[in-house]
């Protein structure tokens, strides 16, 4: 198991977000909204198996995306109507 931080960034407005790995729901939060003064909506901190396939879904918009994550951080945003996942080796920064 390794720690994984997932930053939900731009594009969220009153959404529900769900994180699954290996088909199992690991985390869920409702009413997720991007704070435009910092470009971050919420941050999830999980423990996941190494090399696991992580699925992020936004059921309020019928969006889902998956990524095999081998980095400690994952940035998530909704852009152009799509859910975009960006693995990152560096701590995502917001101001």
């Amino acid at each position, binding site marked *: 198991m390794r720690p994984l*931080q997932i930053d939900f960034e731009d594009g969220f*407005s*009153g959404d529900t977000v769900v994180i699954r790995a290996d088909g199992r729901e690991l985390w869920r939060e409702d009413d997720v909204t991007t704070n435009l*003064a910092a470009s971050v909506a919420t941050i999830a901190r999980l423990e996941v198996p190494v090399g696991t396939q992580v699925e992020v879904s936004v059921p309020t918009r019928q969006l889902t995306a998956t990524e095999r994550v081998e980095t400690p951080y994952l940035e998530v945003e909704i852009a152009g109507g799509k859910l975009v996942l960006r693995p990152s080796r560096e*701590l995502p*920064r*917001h*101001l």
Partner: protein
Amino acid sequence: MVDIDPTTGLAEPELHAEHEEGGVALEVMPPHENGASAAVDEETAVAIASALAPTIDEPTETGDIDVSTLSGLGIHPLPKIPLPLVKRRVAGRYRSAGAPFQVELRVDVDGPRPTMRVSADYYSISGGTINYFGSMRVDAVSVAVSPTVVTITGLGVYTWSAGAPRVKVTIPRMPIFSRGGAATLQHLTLAGTPGATYICKFVSPFLRSVLFEQDRQDTVPAPFVSYNTGSLPSGGPARTLSVAGAYAEAGVEMQTAGVTDVVNTTETGANGTWSDAELHAAMVRHFSLWRDIPQWAVWLFHAQLHDLGPGLYGIMFDQVGRQRQGAAVFYQSLAGTTADQQRLQLYTTTHEIGHCFNLLHSWQKSLAIPPLPDRPNALSWMNYPWRYPLGGAGAFWNAFPFQFDDQELIHIRHAFRDAVIMGGNPFRVGSALEDPEGWRDPIEDNSGLKLELRAPRSFTFGSPVSVDLELSATDMRGRRVPQRLRPRNGNVEIAIRQPAGRVLVYKPLLHQCAVDDMVILDVDTPGISETAFVHYGQDGFYFETPGLYRLRARIIAADGSIVLSNILEVRVQSPVTREDDEAADLMFGDEQGTLMYLMGSDFDQLQAGNEAFSDLQSRFPAHPLAAVARLVQGVNAAREFKQVGADNSVTVRQPKPEEADKLLKGVVDLAAARRAVGKKKDLESIRKAVATEIRDTARAKVDPDLAAYIKARRREIAVEVSGATE
């Protein structure tokens, strides 16, 4: 309502005691009435005020310089007239004295990074009180320079319908070591007839002045002070910059003020980190200048760590009530003395204060209300270096000159007051000054969409105003649009120009967050339509006096196209009889407005509204407005109403169908509505069918303006009268 105009008809200006140069007293502005900002969304005021105003045929001697013809945002250098080095610049802030109006004038034609604009804020003086009246800005100035005087002329845009909108500013050229000369601000009508004149004494070379207080958490021993921009490669000249220095370069004087506090970590609560709510509480407690009014004062808190963790370097946390008065930066990640760390501290502190000036991130200008194009490539304090598309952080830092971009500079210096002042507009509202074209007809429209606005020609005074919207495709290849064409979903904006010239954008009382289902407009679905209730919202009543109103609607299409409707004229009739007057009087009250918005309520704090509606029905049963009251109370009687007590107990008032039927008789054809249920089984189909029936029969049954209100609220009515439940 605007029945006085600071641009017209003043007597000879009175001269009072001189202002001290460079010193700016904190102005005490009483809160606006009705709990809502009296200021106007700048985008609306700028463009609707001209777009909706009656057309003016008189020619002007200088010509109306159409902003849309300016290249970009028109940073044009002054003509190269040899200015003797012995004369001082005229750029800066000037202030008039006297009554009934005073003006703070900003001249920006020859200072550092001139934006070639003048702007002004007007204050009305009444006895011992000063109230902000409105703002003006000239986006396209003509400047004439002689050896003795600088003359600046142009057509102003105002937050009200100004009778003498043209301005001429005359400033004597003074020797460099002299005090700045007084500026004469003369207003003229479009025909050139002189209006009001103000003698504005020179106050400061800065265009704005803000009181700046900084406090620190006890675990932050060394808050940021300054950074030498030449320490690492950059895009501008090397100089030592503090936050105050960065803003001085933008034309803003950040005056150190207040009492410096050390904030105890215990104020973070048990977890030792700051939530936004805890930051707000700390601000109220420690910001010695904090007040619940708009004021030019800002708080910067040097803190340790936010709840979101070390990735959050800073945040403008103040997004509650009177917003944008404070920001925080976090030293868990920012602390350090290396050049990189000091550079990041400067960047973060200046960036967060930029949010307090109502600036959005460079790549999110389209999220301003109203929106503008994003500028992700901007070399600006408001970008994220690591998001820079043209090479990332390294490329950004190498090119960044440590300044705001040109459009942000214009906003900071010249936006209408409430779009900038701390505690003014909420964050995002009016945050994008730069393009006044948002409400004017586009030069070219390839959106493939057409938006139409319709309503009955006139409304009874006091009757709820509702308007029809229709969005259709002009390009049958298909255009993607939101399915819900309603202000409360944020998908359409409706600007309203009131008879006295005040311009407002309708703000619904409640914002309905819904999944943005999209629909394709094409041959099969050529259009969508909706009826919107625009009578009462966050600004109170939008149609509170008889007279002629002008409305315009706007949507932002999926591709960013701004689609404007026709300009709709709607007349609110004057009361004819005493009965009309008294009946209308019973319709105006915040409780009544809220009840009309919600289609009724048992809530005890709205009791005064229900009493007024009952009074209306008993005293004036045949008056058209009584039908509105019956509709609102009838729909409420038809619903089950739950009240939650202070002890979280729930009381359920059962529907009262007999009372509902009695009230709604003659207003809604209940029999037809219930027949529409037919053999439908699912709730959604039932309610949709009933809503459609209500809309269709309303036209035949009641007055047109009441029919419009019923159409606007048909879904809410259908939910209650269909008898269908989950």
